[in-house]
């Protein structure tokens, strides 16, 4: 039975407490002569998130006890797709920094195409070529700017 609400509630509770106990005190100054502390709004939000996370956790626990689903189940294919996109974009950033922007862009386009089952060579070569030339024409020539 899906219990994602329970997990989300606990994660948000830990997040809220960590914000209040560690992050806000170390990442926010006292404010000196300021009339109102710079930490005020982050504290309000964190207190709100923590309180609501407690409610979410309690509600999810109650539902699970009554045998009712508390949340939804995400199909494995969507988790893999998320990971694939993160890896493709992460890989493209690495290639952009250490190799070249063009190679990065090719990975960014061809990676998801391959992941989605595209195997036609002319498309795997043609789509990145058209997109890169199109972007170059649009941004360099039409709009008159430099991307890199």
């Amino acid at each position: 039975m899906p219990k994602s609400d329970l997990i989300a509630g606990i994660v948000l509770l830990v997040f809220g407490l960590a914000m209040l106990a560690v992050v806000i005190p170390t990442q926010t100054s006292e404010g000196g002569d300021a009339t109102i502390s710079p930490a005020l709004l982050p504290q309000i939000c964190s207190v709100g998130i923590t309180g609501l996370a407690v409610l979410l956790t309690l509600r999810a626990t109650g539902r699970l006890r009554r045998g009712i689903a508390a949340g939804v189940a995400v199909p494995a294919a969507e988790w893999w797709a998320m990971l694939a996109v993160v890896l493709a974009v992460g890989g493209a950033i690495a290639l952009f920094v250490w190799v070249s922007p063009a190679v990065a862009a090719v990975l960014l386009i061809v990676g998801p195409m391959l992941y989605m089952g595209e195997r036609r060579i002319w498309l795997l070569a043609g789509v990145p070529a058209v997109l890169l030339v199109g972007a170059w024409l649009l941004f360099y020539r039409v709009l008159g700017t430099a991307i890199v």
Partner: protein
Amino acid sequence: MDSFLPVLESAFSPGNLAWILFGVTLGYLVGALPGLGKGTATAVAIPLTFYLSPLAAIAFLVGIAKGSTAGSAVSAILLNTPGEPSSTPTAMAGYPLARAGKAQKALKMGLFASVIGDLFSTIVLILVAQELAEYALGIGPVELTGILAFSMVFIAGLSGRSMIKGLIAGLFGILVSCVGLEVETGSPRLTFGMIEVYDGLPLIPVAIGMLALSEMMIQIGQRQRLQEEADLLRGSGKREDRIVTLGDWRRSARAILRGCLIGTGVGILPGLGASVGSFLSYGAERKASGRGADFEETGAIEGVAAAESADNAVVPASFVPLFAIGIPGSVIAAILIGAFTIQGITPGPLLFLENRDLILGVYMSMIAASLFLLLIGYFGQNVFARIVRISPALVMPIVVFLCCLGAYLQGGGAFGIGVMVVFGVIGFFAKKYDFSFVTFLIGFVIGPSFELSLRQTLGLVTDVSELLDHPVALAFAALAVFGVWRLTVLQRRQREAIVGD
């Protein structure tokens, strides 16, 4: 009149009209593709606006929003796959018509209803926004704090199925907006020593991540279903399928009028969104027709008209709170705030004083966009009907590339892409687990205004009794509390009904 002529000239200049036409076409094209909606279309188009004049930039984005809203009916009717949730009623009433060989008729009626709804709502925007802005000019920080708090509660309660999750998303959005230099002291806050975020997290990479990249993650995960739906599509060659008869107009006129009114009303209220408008209008027409389940079994041209007129009326009406008060009532409005900011313009009541020519130009461009919508949709219908057959394996990677391009340009290079990925993952979780990403984005956008007005309020009001001098603020605060209670009760009843079923 003399001051009006230059505005007319700039709004109807060939360059501006070309950008509107490009925006409507691009929007229609993206909207027609299964799984892609107006949020994605507008977010990925932002980088194109960096180098445009303010009028052309806003007109272009408005064109995309209008085009993609209308275009989403194409995939809804032909594939039973709405480009976005607000087109679901269109699919319910239109897909059976397509199966019965009346796809062209349904598409045409959908287009006509879309244009009428859009134009009606644009006229209401023109008539209402300035009046509201003049009133809003008299609003002080105490009242603004109350209005913003009420808006957040309202949006949190209505944009998802859970008030608790909606409020968490809104508070998280405001919290994320706190990153950067603090407004009063100028000291770094929640920056972890990264100077890239001293100006705050860039809106566009955050918006592209939350809206477009997260959607691509989900759509790529559903690639098999999308591919199967695209493969199933077959065209129809019957002549009568391409005609909207006088009888169709008679059946649909009342539905369109009601849809215009419902969509405009829903659009003006922050947070309700196009889905509420199209479902309300469709439900009202279904009930009024007395046909019941027959609507979904055999299809109903008036059902398509009801849903599309309301869906398209929501977009221009949602600009009323944006232009008049500076509160984005929808995702499109939140993205438009980013576009306004890029151009150095702050939406809100002063817009009508400081940028009157721009706003008049935007109004005229919106009317032009409505007319282009009719032309593009009518003459390009066959082309768009073919576009929905394009393999998702080609479309999704292109959108991912455009997402990265947009984040790179507006987010300070590779850092912007990194921000986009982080918020893409957050958006993925938000969408899958029903934490309203709309509320998050709106919280993120109004966060700085809320903090400023809250600080001013705390400076002005030193004693609780002084709040009695601000009845408007008290009224909105009371409405916020009432909203939390009422919406929570309604959502609990809905859940119990679902469990009961």
